[in-house]
C-alpha cells in the first residue's frame, strides 16, 4: 500500500471536465441514496484536488477530511492526500504537518519524502519573493523617509 501513492506531479494533472463530471454525478447519486462508498467519495475528492480551480481543491480537501474522520483504516493514506491537497492550495504549513505525521509513521515513504522536498522548495521560493518584496518596500520607505528628512532639513 505505501508505495501506491501518486507523486505530487500527478496531482497537477487535472481530469477533463467530463471525467470530473462523471465522478461528481456518481458521488451525488450515492449521496442521494444516503450511502456513499468510500471509494466514490475518494474518487470525487481526488478528482477535485487534481482540478486547477481553487474552490474545487477546497471541496476536495474537505471530502478527504470527511473520509479521514469516518474511516480510521484509511487515515494513513488520507494523510498523504491531505498533505498533497494542502500543498496544492499553497497551505504549506498544513501540508507539512500532515506529511510529517505520515513520515513519522512511514519514514521510508518515497512519495511523502518527495512531497516534503517540494513543500520546502515552495516555501523557500515564496520566502525569497517575500524577502525581495520586503526589501523593495523597505528601500522605498527609506527613500521616502530620506526625502522627507531632506525636505524637512531644508
Amino acid at each position, binding site marked *: *500500500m505505501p508505495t*501506491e*501513492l*501518486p507523486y505530487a506531479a500527478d496531482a497537477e494533472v487535472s*481530469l477533463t471536465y*467530463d*471525467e470530473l463530471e*462523471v*465522478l461528481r454525478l456518481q458521488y451525488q447519486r450515492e449521496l442521494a441514496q444516503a*450511502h456513499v*462508498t*468510500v*471509494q*466514490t467519495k*475518494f*474518487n470525487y475528492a*481526488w*478528482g477535485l484536488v487534481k482540478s486547477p480551480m*481553487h474552490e474545487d481543491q*477546497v*471541496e476536495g480537501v*474537505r471530502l478527504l*477530511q470527511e473520509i479521514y*474522520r469516518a*474511516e*480510521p*483504516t*484509511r*487515515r*494513513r*493514506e*488520507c*494523510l498523504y*492526500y*491531505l498533505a498533497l491537497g*494542502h500543498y496544492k*492550495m499553497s*497551505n504549506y*504549513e*498544513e501540508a*507539512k*504537518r*500532515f506529511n*510529517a*505525521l505520515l*513520515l513519522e*509513521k512511514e519514514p521510508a515513504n518515497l512519495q511523502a519524502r518527495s512531497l*516534503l522536498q517540494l513543500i*520546502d522548495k515552495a*516555501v*523557500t521560493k*515564496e*520566502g*525569497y*519573493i*517575500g*524577502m525581495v*518584496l*520586503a526589501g523593495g*518596500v523597505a528601500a522605498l520607505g527609506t527613500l521616502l523617509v530620506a526625502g522627507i528628512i531632506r525636505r524637512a532639513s531644508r
Partner: protein
Amino acid sequence: MSSEFGERGNGSKTKKRQDPQASNSSGPSKLEVLQKTFLAPFNHKKTDSTRILSDLAPVIMTPRMMNSAATVSSRPRASVSGSSSKMDFATLGRAPLRLGFGPSHRATSRDLQIVEATDELLGAEVPEPEGVASSVSLLRGFEATIPSADKSRTRRRQMRHVETPKLGLKKLGMSARGLMVEDEDHESRSVASEEDIVVVGAKTSRRKGRESLSTAKQLGKEELTRQQEEILRDKENLHVRRSLIHSEIDEIVNKIAVLDGIRTKLEEDLLKLQEDELELDDELQGVKERMEFEQSTTKAATAHPLHLLPTTRRRKGPAFLPSEHEELPPGTLESHTSPITALDFSEPYGTLVSASQEDAQPLVWDLFSGTEIGRLRGHTGGVKSVQVEDHICLTGGEDGNVRVWDLRKVDDEAWGEGEMVNLSDVAEEAEDDNGELVERPNGIRNGESDGGEAEKDGPCLRILDGHTKAVTALYFEDECLVTGASDKTLRQWDMTTGQCVMTMDILWAISHPPTSAPGGAPPNTLFPGAVAAAGNFAVPAPPAADGSWDMYTDFVGGVQFWGYGLVSGSGDGAVRMWDMRTGQAHRTLHGHTGPITCLQFDEIHIASGSLDKTLRIWDLRTGGIFETIKYDHAVTALQFDSRKIVAAAGENGIKIYNRTSMQQSALATNGHTRPVEKLRYMDRYLVTGGRDSTVKIWSL
C-alpha cells in the same frame, strides 16, 4: 491576509516541534532571532472568531495586532533552538509576500474550516490499515473506477470493427457483444506481415487507434501485445473493483447485523413493556375487586365464620406491586427429609405449609424470616395436598381425611400432645371465646363421634372425613371445598357445616360418558373402568431426569372449580368438566395418554399436566387442544396465568413458558439438586419443592 500571517507564525512553531527532519544542524542564527522579534506579535493565540473577524476586516485588525505587539513580545517563547534557519528565513520572507500581494484567491470560510480542522485531524489516532484498506489502496481504486479506465477497451473495439472482413460472422457477433476471446484474437493477427505494423504510442492510443481505422487493415505484433497488456490491466482493474464492492458489501452486512441486533433488543423491550402492561392490568383488576369487596364487607359488616376473603386471588393474582419483592434473594428451606409432596403459601412473605413423603406432619414456615414456625400434627399418613388461604389451611392426607387448620394458632412451643376433643366442643368453645366460629354443634358428619376430632386450642379446626382412600387433590374457595381422592370420587364439602354436600363418582362418569357426545368417549385403553373398579390405582411414573421413579397412585391429579363449574383431571388421562349442581360430568376432554397430575383453569383455558410428558392447554369453550407443550419428563405440577406457564417437569430446573413470546426457559441457578415436584407462585414470588427434600423460594 493578516490573519493567515498570524497563523503562519503559530504554525511555524508547531512545525518546529513536530518536524525535526526539516531542521538542519545549524544552531540559532541571527536571522532566527530577527524572525522571532518580527513575528512575536503574531504568535499570540487567537480564537477562531477573531480569526474570522480578522479575515473580514483585516484593516482593522492589523493595527490592533501591532498595538498588542509590545505586550505580547514579553511572553516567553518556546523552542528557540532546534529550528532550521532556512525554514525561518523562508517563513520570514513569506510574511511580507502575504501582506503585500495577498493570496491569489479570496479565502473563503471553507478554507478556514479546512485549515482549522487540521489540529483535530492530526490529533486523531492513525491505526494500521486493515481489511480492504490494506489490500486495495484508494488510488488503485480510483484508477480502476474512473471513466478513462474503460478507454482502452473502447479503442480496442473500434480497432476490431475495422477488421470485420477478417473476422468470421461468429466472431463479429461476439465482438459486438464484447465477448472477444483474446487467444483467438491474437492468433488471427500474428500472421500479419511486418510491413503493415501500425506503431501506436502508448500515450496517444486513442488517436492512433482512429488512424488505424483508415490506414491499416492489420495490426502489428506490437499493437497486439499492447492490447494484451491492456486487457490484463483491465482485468486487474475489474478485480480491484470487485474487491472494493465486496468490501462494501461486507461492511453493509456488518451494519445490517448490528441493526438486527438492535432490532431484536428493541423487540424484547417492546415485549417486556407489553408484559408490564398486562401485569398492570391484572393489578388494576385486583385493586378493583378488592375495592368492591371492601365496600361490600363494610355494608354487610357480618363476621364470616372462617373469615375467608371471597377474592379470586389465586386466579387473578393479588393486588400488590410486583416490584415489592423484586429484591428477594431466592432462599432455601431445608428441614424435610423426604421428597416434597405438597406445598402452598398464603402470600409472598407470608406463611408456607409444605408436606413431604411419609411424613404425617406438614411443616409451617414463616416466609419472611425463612424459619420454621411449627408442624400440623393430626394426619395419620402422608399429606398429598395442601391449600392455604390467609390463615386457613386445608390438608388432604393419605388417611382419607381433610383437615382444616388455623395457621395463626400454630405454635411449636404452646402445644404438642394436646388432648383430642370433639369438634362440637371446639365449636362451642370457639364461639364462646371470640365468636369467630359459628358452628352448629351437630353439624358434623353423621354420627361418627370419634371421627371429628380436633385438638383443644390446637390449630386443627375441623376434620372432614368421608373419602376412603388418600385425598390427592383439593380446592376450596370461600366456604366450598372440592376434594379428589384415590377412591375415585370427588366430594364437595360445605366448610361452614363440615358436611359432604355431594359425591361425584369418576368411575361412573367413565362408564357413562356425557350424553352430549352421542358417540361416547373414545375407548379408554389407559384405564378401563372395570380395572379401575377392581383395585388400587397405580401406574409407574416415567423416570425423571435423575432416573428415579415412583408408582403413581394419585387417582385425581387436580381439581378446581369456579361457580358451579368444576374441572377435574384424573388417572384415566381425561379432563372432566362437571356441573356441581347436578353432579354430572358434562364434558370430557381426551388427549392425554397418561394420568393427569395437575390442572388449572382460567376464564379461557384449562392447563393440564400429565405423566405422558406433555402439558396441554385446552380451550374452555370448544374443548379443543389449544396448545401442547412437550417436555422430556413427566409433568408433576403447573401453574399458569395469561403470560406464562410455570411447570415442574421432572427436571431440576423449573420450566417457564412465556406465552407472549412463546419462549421456553428454565430456572436452574442455585436450584434443586433433584427434580422439582411441586410449585406454587403468586405474582413473581415462586415457591418450589423438590425430590431433594428442599423448598426453594424464587423471584420470577
